[in-house]
């Protein structure tokens, strides 16, 4: 980057921005105008504009935050489905068939396929498109491949923003597909309203793998390749594991609700804007909940994930899968769980953004003080210690916040 330049190491790139700490204020007017044009074209239904918007988002190009803000106003209606599972479970093939099934119902579909990038070269071969055979030539299925690009935590933000773009474009359903391994990928599917976890039969290890975090996020389990041996056993194992999860869930359930409630209050402001919270959806569609639900949620108790058997290559079981996904969607609407989920998701998003913005500010401050290496040397030479250094870096921020708090007379219920 800017190397030794200490005062403004970030964001100086598009030349026109002021020396401002607020990332939202440094959008030059030309960038804003460009974003406005792009959003106008996107809303007018231009695929090229949608593609370019996602590129800007993915690249974190200067002004992308302004772009996402503009898109956000038009988003909030799409149903987001996450599909995850071990490599080779048949995710891409299933997503392809799922997209075709949604199209048959008249829904427009966006697909985001996330593939890992090489930790060595940073490059990636994104092969999911090979399997997207059922919907080629249909521009109402918009498939976009994304690589993980080695981002830690940033991937879920980029994916969420890409979903916002597809949502604003007017896609009825957005499917996010990713290999369910590792924290960042789990975070990605978590951005979905409904998560389908794919398992292939015949390898007990697969179900074992699910124990490590994937089991908890599955709303619907899909035993794909249900035409090979070992299906019954895999289904039985899954069922057993889901039952155990429910028992565990009951034990920890109470603690979680109180904790989440606090989050909800904090994010109350955002909720009034009705963005992506699913609040409108809760209101208007609550009535149709009764007859759907897939027969899986017992009197609005906790959701019991159904297990669906499919053969993605032939399309068998796809109806059942759609029913299960719809069932979960209507469960979310009926019980308010969808609202809860949306609040949690947005809260996590806000936290992530605040954290990375604060990080950015503090990274600049560290640079101003000669860079982290110089600080480390001072600690090594026993001139100081890491805690004192951290205090010195953060103190200006702390003092600044304190003075603002005093300035605004009564800080209402702000905790210290």
């Amino acid at each position, binding site marked *: 980057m800017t190397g030794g330049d200490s005062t403004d190491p*970030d964001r100086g790139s598009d030349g026109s921005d002021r020396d401002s700490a607020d990332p939202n204020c440094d959008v030059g007017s030309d960038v804003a105008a460009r974003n406005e044009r792009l959003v106008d074209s996107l809303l007018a239904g231009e695929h*090229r504009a949608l593609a*370019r918007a996602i590129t800007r988002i993915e690249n974190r190009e*200067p002004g992308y935050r302004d772009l996402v803000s503009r898109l956000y106003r038009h988003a909030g209606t799409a149903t987001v489905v996450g599909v995850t599972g071990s490599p080779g479970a048949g995710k891409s093939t299933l997503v392809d068939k799922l997209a075709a099934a949604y199209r048959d119902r008249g829904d427009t579909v966006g697909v985001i396929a996330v593939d890992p990038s090489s930790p*060595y*070269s940073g490059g990636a071969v994104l*092969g999911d498109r090979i399997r997207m055979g059922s919907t*080629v030539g249909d521009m109402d299925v918009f498939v976009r*491949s994304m*690589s993980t690009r080695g981002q830690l935590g940033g991937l879920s933000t980029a994916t969420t923003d890409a979903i916002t773009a597809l949502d604003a474009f007017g896609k009825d359903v957005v499917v996010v597909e990713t290999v369910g391994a590792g924290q960042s990928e789990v975070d990605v599917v978590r951005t979905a309203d409904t998560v389908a976890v794919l398992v292939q039969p015949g390898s007990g290890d697969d179900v074992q793998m699910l124990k490590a975090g994937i089991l908890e996020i599955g709303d619907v389990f899909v035993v794909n390749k249900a035409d090979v041996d070992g299906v019954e056993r895999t289904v039985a194992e899954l069922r057993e594991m889901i039952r155990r999860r429910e028992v565990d869930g009951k034990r920890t359930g109470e603690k979680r609700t109180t904790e989440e409630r606090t989050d909800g209050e904090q994010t109350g402001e955002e909720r009034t804007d009705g963005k992506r919270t699913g609040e409108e959806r809760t209101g208007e569609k609550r009535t149709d909940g009764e007859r759907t639900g897939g027969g899986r949620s017992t009197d609005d108790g906790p959701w019991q994930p159904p297990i669906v058997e499919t053969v993605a290559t032939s399309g068998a079981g796809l109806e059942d899968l759609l029913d299960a996904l719809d069932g979960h969607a209507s469960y979310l609407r009926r019980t308010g769980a969808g609202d809860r989920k949306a609040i949690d998701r947005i809260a996590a998003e806000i936290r992530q953004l605040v954290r990375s913005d604060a990080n950015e500010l503090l990274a600049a401050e560290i640079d101003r003080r000669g860079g982290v290496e110089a600080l480390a040397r001072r600690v090594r030479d026993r001139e100081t210690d890491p805690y004192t250094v951290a205090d010195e870096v953060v103190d200006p921020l702390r003092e600044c916040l304190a003075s603002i708090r005093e300035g605004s007379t009564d800080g209402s219920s702000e905790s210290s």
Partner: protein
Amino acid sequence: MSADAEQGWRNRPIRCLIAKVGLDGHDRGAHVISRAFRDAGFEVVYSGLHRAPEEVVQAAVQEDVDVLGLSILSGAHNTLVPAVIEGLKSYDAFEDTLIIVGGIIPEEDRERLHEMGVDAVFGPGTPMEETIEFVRENVPRRER
């Protein structure tokens, strides 16, 4: 993110679509070039075999690639390439996409392909580094 994000945008990976177009089942070359591009740090979307020109266009537009690499060994380049280029133009995606063609292209056809808007033709035996270097140097600067 912060510094990472900033760097990510500066050194963003070059995005490529490697596409097999038409009725030609020889994809070894496409695989090798995909792999080489990946190792060069590019993000490569691979189309799979037997794609129609409109499918290739759809993928190129949706994926918003910087580079479109067409692999053609069937001899049908004189019909397939113009079809793809026309498609790209209809989506306003021709100007800022670098188009390269690989495969068996007779010497006398190359000039025609260039005139249509193909940026480079790489025949059999082209060193991988040459192709990669060409892409690095010629990826269109985007500003819109």
